């Protein structure tokens, strides 16, 4: 089907644009709830934790360079156990897709399109993702690589401009005054990085899978660095107590930022435009991974046929949360449960594969996804 074409840079671009997503809006709130002015530290710990998870799947991916997690888990722990694990992964990513779409819809309906039904915003976004996923994984990587600069540069500009109103004292003490929720907060923030699991689908299509660790390192450094910068900027501008009063502090930061010489007096509209792209790439990844994993589980050579199939299911799941508060509770708990699936499960697989001395084929210049 497709030759191995994805380079290291493309792989890290996929990671960056997958990780940066709908979560950036509420991120400073999660961080501040955990340890007020220690928010950046919490984010940093979360990045470390997320990197451990990513390193585990990268390591596994390097051991089995021409299979996805769905296939090599069968080799490692046997068909039936692996089937349960894979079903959980697929289900989790379907839920993740629906929650991303719903969170997107809620933000849009609250702040921009107030009389558009939230169902319509969600459907449009899901449809967009569904249509884009009908292509192969190389196109997938190209689309991500294309969007990365559009995600990074505007956010960095907004952060740089907002520093005009920043006060360093808001960031002290760096470990926070009340660290009560530090552990829980770290897990919540780390859950925002779970899209990185997409790497298991990317490695088998990489030109040099042995260099995957480099890609995951840089992907995490860029995405994690951006997250830390956003948290630090938001806290230094608003102070941690004010952030607790705001639902989407990052959006508020864009609102409080002006371009020099009053060219644009508030940047929230510009920021939302960027953010829609960020949400799209995240949604694209989780949607793609869901159907890609499904096609591998059922040993089909095409993932296309599921792209419209899961659309109504994902939509119905997205509509289940009754209100915005409930939605955030669900997002936080689903995220923490997801950490077991995206970090714990690969960890288990890795240990078993080392104990049982299982290993994939060496990389030859073979086509991807060949059915044995």
């Amino acid at each position: 089907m497709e030759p191995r074409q994805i380079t290291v840079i493309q792989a890290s671009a996929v990671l960056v644009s997958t990780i940066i997503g709908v979560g950036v809006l509420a991120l400073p709130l999660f961080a501040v709830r955990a340890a007020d002015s220690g928010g950046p530290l919490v984010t940093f710990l979360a990045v470390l934790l997320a990197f451990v998870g990513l390193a585990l799947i990268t390591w596994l991916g390097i051991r089995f360079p021409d299979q996805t997690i769905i296939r090599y888990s069968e080799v490692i722990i046997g068909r039936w156990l692996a089937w349960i694990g894979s079903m959980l992964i697929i289900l989790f990513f379907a839920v993740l897709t629906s929650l991303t779409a719903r969170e997107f819809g809620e933000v849009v309906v609250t702040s921009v399109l107030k009389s558009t039904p939230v169902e319509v915003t969600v459907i449009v976004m899901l449809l967009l993702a569904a249509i884009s996923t009908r292509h192969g994984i190389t196109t997938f990587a190209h689309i991500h690589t294309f969007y990365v600069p559009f995600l990074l540069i505007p956010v960095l500009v907004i952060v740089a401009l907002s520093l005009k109103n920043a006060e360093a004292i808001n960031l002290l003490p760096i470990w926070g005054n009340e660290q009560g929720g530090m552990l829980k907060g770290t897990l919540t923030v780390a859950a925002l990085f779970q899209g990185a699991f997409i790497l298991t689908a990317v490695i088998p299509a990489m030109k040099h899978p042995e260099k995957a660790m480099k890609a995951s390192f840089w992907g995490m450094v860029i995405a994690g660095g951006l997250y830390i910068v956003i948290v630090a900027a938001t806290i230094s501008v608003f102070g941690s107590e004010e952030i607790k009063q705001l639902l989407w502090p990052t959006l508020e930061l864009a609102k409080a930022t002006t371009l020099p010489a009053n060219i644009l007096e508030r940047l929230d509209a510009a920021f939302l435009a960027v953010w829609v792209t960020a949400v799209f790439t995240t949604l694209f990844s989780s949607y793609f991974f869901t159907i890609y994993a499904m096609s591998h589980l059922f040993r089909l050579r095409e993932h296309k046929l599921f792209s419209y199939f899961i659309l109504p299911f994902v939509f119905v799941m997205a509509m289940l949360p009754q209100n915005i508060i409930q939605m955030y509770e669900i997002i936080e708990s689903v995220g923490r449960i997801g950490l077991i699936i995206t970090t714990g499960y690969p960890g288990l697989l890795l240990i078993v594969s080392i104990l049982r001395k299982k290993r994939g084929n060496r990389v030859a210049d073979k086509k991807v996804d060949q059915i044995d």
Partner: protein
Amino acid sequence: MRTRKWIKSISVLCAVIIATPFLAGCWDRLEIEERAVVLGVSIDTVDTEEAEQEEDEVSHVHGTLPAPRKGMVRVAVQIALPGRIPLGPGESGGGGKGSVGQTVWVIDVVGHSINDAFMNLQQQISSRLFFGHLRVIVVSEAVARRGLENVNDYFRRNSEVRRMAWLMISKGQARKLMMAAPPLERVPTLYLMSTLDEGIRMGKFPKDFIGMFWSNVSKKGQEGFLPYVEIKKEQNVEIKGLAYFVDDHMVGVTKPLEIAGYLAVKGINPAGYRVFVQLDGADEAVMTTATHRRSKISVQIKDDVPHFTIDIGIELNLEGKVSENVQIDNPAVMQMIENKQEEASVIFYSNIIKKSQEKGSDYFGFGEIVRAKKPQYWNKRIKTAEGWRNMYKDCTFDVKVSMKVRRIGMKGK
């Protein structure tokens, strides 16, 4: 073959018809002239009985909702008249004469809360109220003293309001500021806004947009403050001081010169206040203007109470003298001016701080310094905003000032 073609074109048509409502974004279509663009809002107290007479049953039926304990409010809004606001400097527009009513429309309503008042207002005007261009919110002192919870809640919750708008407290009726029509600007609220914006540029006022006020109110170790303004007889606006708060209740107001004290303690640049310096006799006074401020605040814990050392440095220019009795021709005189002003300033700054301590309102944010620099002490002894309010009264301060006169203008002596 023909039917095939038919089916194909019909399915394409169907797809277009289904896609149009999704892609065209018609739900939120709102033409600009259908919006009532609110430029300014004023909030006053109103006599409850009188207000209940005036209020229609818009958001609730009479008698079902008791008047809030804090009393009802009268809200006045300035709505921009589409087409009347001149766009460029060359255009004469409809204004020109500078009287209210040319470019804006001022309407007032009463309500149980801010939101209620806006609903009453919406019932009276055809277009949808739009707050995206809201620049100035004026609240009368009486409302501020009762507390701003409701005002803060409403404007924070509304996604259209910008954080760079100004919230100010007026001496007397706030509605008068909405009605004012200073001849300098064709849009009255822009004049109000530029009074404060220019104040920042000239070093006469700290940056204190509504977003910053909210941040300060939220902080545990700091209280909020807002500009305190009064309308003068020529419809001009004077910045009369800082209205300072405890939580969201206004508790006091400073004198205009005390704003300079605040700016110096915080070391905010540029500097711009001019002061008299009394040298020996009554006639021997000179006037200096500050050009640059620097301040360093450090905190120690002495006997379980925070002790602050404030080290202020100000650069000055000499601006004028009252009589020729003083000759400014040698460094000794300069030294003397510096010393005199230092002495006066230490007392002046200490008094401002003492006054804020009496009111229990730390609008300087000394508490934030304790929270940031002495977290262990803070966690053990203070913890909450309430805790800091109590502790602030007992704090001790040590103010050191160093003044440097650098330039004397174009005159030789």
